[in-house]
């Protein structure tokens, strides 16, 4: 009587203040929290989505960007199915920190993890310090997908998580297929719908 078919763990990482918590709350609660305080340690949210007619539960672990929590946050990388590496397009500093984040990922996360690069706060277009091209180049060289989002304007936020859910689901199905030739992979998430409040 499980209420879902697949369960995936998604972990958000990135410098303090880039908007990780806002992205999660936008996705799970549909709101942009005013005056969102810095995350302490690790926060947890859950969201169940429907993909290809199947319920997929996403456990979302929103880590603190502050360096002092690094030891506890690193301990959450290990079991992540997907890592969302967030930077703030209005801050070069958060973009420049990406290599060291990737180093941590390499050190602590599972080799099978999928990682997605997210440039957040694109609504602040006039303050932009990191161009789309720069970000694309970085993502390419590191074999990641890039998505530019705005938690505030809800741009690309659902897509971010749903893409992840689709990719992870497909991965599981593909490995299932090795055993039994059955379902087709899902190509897009037009068939996706939300379900379940939390």
């Amino acid at each position, binding site marked *: *009587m499980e209420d879902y078919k697949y369960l995936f763990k998604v972990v958000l990482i990135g410098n303090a203040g880039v908007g990780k918590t806002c992205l999660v709350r936008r996705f799970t609660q549909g709101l942009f929290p005013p005056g969102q305080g810095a995350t302490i340690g*690790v926060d*947890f949210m859950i969201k169940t989505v429907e993909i290809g007619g199947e319920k997929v539960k996403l456990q979302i*672990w929103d880590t603190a960007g502050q360096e*002092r929590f690094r*030891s506890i946050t*690193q*301990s959450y990388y290990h079991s992540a199915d997907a890592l969302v590496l967030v930077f703030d397009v209005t801050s070069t500093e958060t973009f420049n920190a990406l290599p060291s984040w990737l180093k941590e990922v390499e050190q602590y996360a599972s080799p099978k993890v999928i990682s997605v690069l997210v440039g957040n706060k694109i609504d602040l277009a006039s303050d932009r310090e990191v161009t789309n091209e720069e970000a694309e180049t970085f993502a390419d060289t590191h074999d990641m997908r890039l998505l530019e989002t705005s938690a505030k304007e809800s741009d690309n936020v659902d897509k971010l998580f749903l893409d992840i859910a689709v990719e992870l689901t497909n991965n599981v199905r593909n490995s299932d297929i090795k055993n039994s030739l059955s379902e087709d992979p899902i190509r897009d998430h037009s068939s996706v719908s939300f379900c379940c*409040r*939390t």
Partner: protein
Amino acid sequence: MPGCCNCLSSCKPRYKRLVDSIFPADPEDGLVRSNMEKLTFYAVSHNEKLDRIGGYLAHRLDRDVYRQRIGYVVISMQALDQLLLACHAQSLNLFVESFLRMVHKLLESNMPELQILGTNSFVKFSQIEEDTPSYHRTYDFFISKFASMCHNNSDHAETRRKIRLAGLKGLQGVVRKTVSDELQVNIWDTTYMDKIVPSFLFNMNEGFDSHESPVHDHPEEKPEVLADSCLRDVMRRAAYANIHTVIKPVLKHLDLHELWVPNNFAIKVFKGIMYSIQSQYRYVTPHFLLLHLDEHMKNTPKIKRSIVEILKEIVAIAADGAVGPSVLEIFNTLLRHLRMSVDERLSGGQASSTDRSASSSKKTKQKFDENEEILFEEAIIDTIGAFANILPDYQKIEIMMFIMGKVPMPRDRSSTVLQEEDHPLSLEPKGEGDILVQDMLLKSLLEVGTKYTTVSMATTFPASFFQPLLNMSVITNPGIRVIVQEILHTLIDRRDNVIKLYANRGIVKNIADLELKCEKASRQDIMFMRKHGAEFQWHIFENLIRVKNTTKNFVAIYCTMALLCVELGTDDILVDLVKLALALQDHACDPNCKMPLTHLYAIHSIVAQYLNLIGQLTAIPSLCQHISQVIEERRKSAPYLLPPISVEDKVPATSPRGVAPDLLFHVDSISEALASSGHDVTRLSLPYIHVQEPQNVDTRPRSLTDVGSINVDFELLHSSPTAGRKRPPEEVTFESLKQVLISGINDSSAEDERQKRLDVLHSFQNSTLDELAAAADTRNEKWQQKLNDILDTVTKSPQTPAGSPTRPDPSTPLQFQSIPTYEMKFPELCVY
């Protein structure tokens, strides 16, 4: 059971109906108790149904959570809790799966009430001992979620406190549940402990600085209090192999949260660890701190000092358990840091300019602070003392030898002696670096020495320690020479006399005022002095004639001389000391002596002070009379020849270099006085001649005494009356030593021989067999001791440079045991 009237409602299985019946129409009314009893009874008597009951309850709960019908959720959980407690059966296992799924469900909710509700149920569950372990069960989610709850950051303070408390209780529950059953989850895995330990520490620290009044709530309801006991709880349960999975996250947490400086929180944490860790593993904690100190090698001296200070704090708690199998490793690490700090100071902060890790780079950029380095070094020395304090005495000696082995020695004796700048063959002085290192290491040695209690001199001063120590005593730097004297003081002084001697800087009128504690020297000590007395004398003499001496040097050397007299000054040793004093006087009177006047006067003063002390101690009237007569003369016409000594004061240019005979002590008068009270003064007639003959260290007078002392030993063992016939009477030989040893009264050697024979005969006639055997035993022991001494020097003379900075991989604490050199040296210490 009544018949068909139940037919309709029994479309549903009975267990479902029973479950439904516990829910009231209005959730406000709470659990229907009477029906709950029925359900419980049913479940207990139909074990096979338990599984389904659980499934059904879980199903209902899912729905209620979804619909946010909290009242019903609470009722479901109450029911689950009760069933869990009531049913101790095999089928509990399956029921538990449903149960945990429900807890999981509640924890996933973002409503604080539900999270707390779920946690409480989980805590109850953690207290139940299950009959059968379930291997497939994991607690990953629970641990992750509880750890997250421990960091809850709700705006509402009370909610925050409650959720954090729940998180802590939950983690405690997981630990409790898993720790006893290794077949289940290995809670000690780093993936778990890396979440659990920081969660505890975060909460401990959150409440650490706040001083809100503890009046209103129970201490157990404070996250910081609970977290503290959680950490201790984990520590208590940790087996040897698991300790590192707890302590490493602790260290990392303190690093990341920058909690080393100030270190009161860190001290609290480590004290907690020390008090709770299983006592046989206590020594591991200091080792981890030392490893961590190594990792902070390039960090600021402030942080390193904090770590070292914490070490000192916790060593006291561990008492003798803090050291463990690799004693030397501890001292080695501390000494290495001491050395590096000195190097850092010498290079003005350039020694460690190359950064290794990104985390440290920020800190090393801070400007070099010499004062901080000095404070760090002092902290190291303190901590060395704290470690030494908990060692048994025999190991303290080993440690002192170990430290001695690290002191940069003057290249050989010649360079020591010839270094003095005014010396005709002066070489370039040694680098400042060596001096600083010597200074620091000898201070450490002194620190260890003060913790050591001397019983017998021979044990305290094994040759491989004694020799280098004496070598250091004549090094150029006067400050270091003072430290060496202080080391000698603390090691020679057995009865706390040194403070009293230090306090008295003048001529004592009445020795009783000093309240010195004197006891007759033991035979072993006398043997030691026979063997090494001449060396002592040579070094004291050499020391006193150094032109760089400060007042401190004179005072310190006087104390050493006085201690030798108080502790060991019997018979011929006393005579030797008198001889030394007179030799110093002669030296100071020598017109060829090139010492400055201040120093000449200081030597005269010391001689006066010393002879006065000897006179008072021996209480030989004629001796005292002569000495006080000379002192009186000096007081009248030459007070500058009397203490207190101060070489820093200028003397008037008119001061005479020569000293009138009536202001000097006379060997004849002294000799007469000593002889009158039965001392053998033959050796006084043969003046002490100071040979500055550095190359032939071993042919200096000492060797003569050496031979003598060994012969005396022999003599006592086999008292053959024919031994030692062909001695040249005017020389100091084993025979003259023997005389002193045996009687000290008769000056006729023939008489002496006879007496001795009589003694031996007497002892054989009047002693029981047992007594003789016992006497033989003591002799044997002494032989054994001697043998050991020799073996000691043989085995230890190539000082093993155990100081190579190899250290075990921090991830494997087991390696602490496998440092072969130390194990060989300290087999007694190996706990395993």
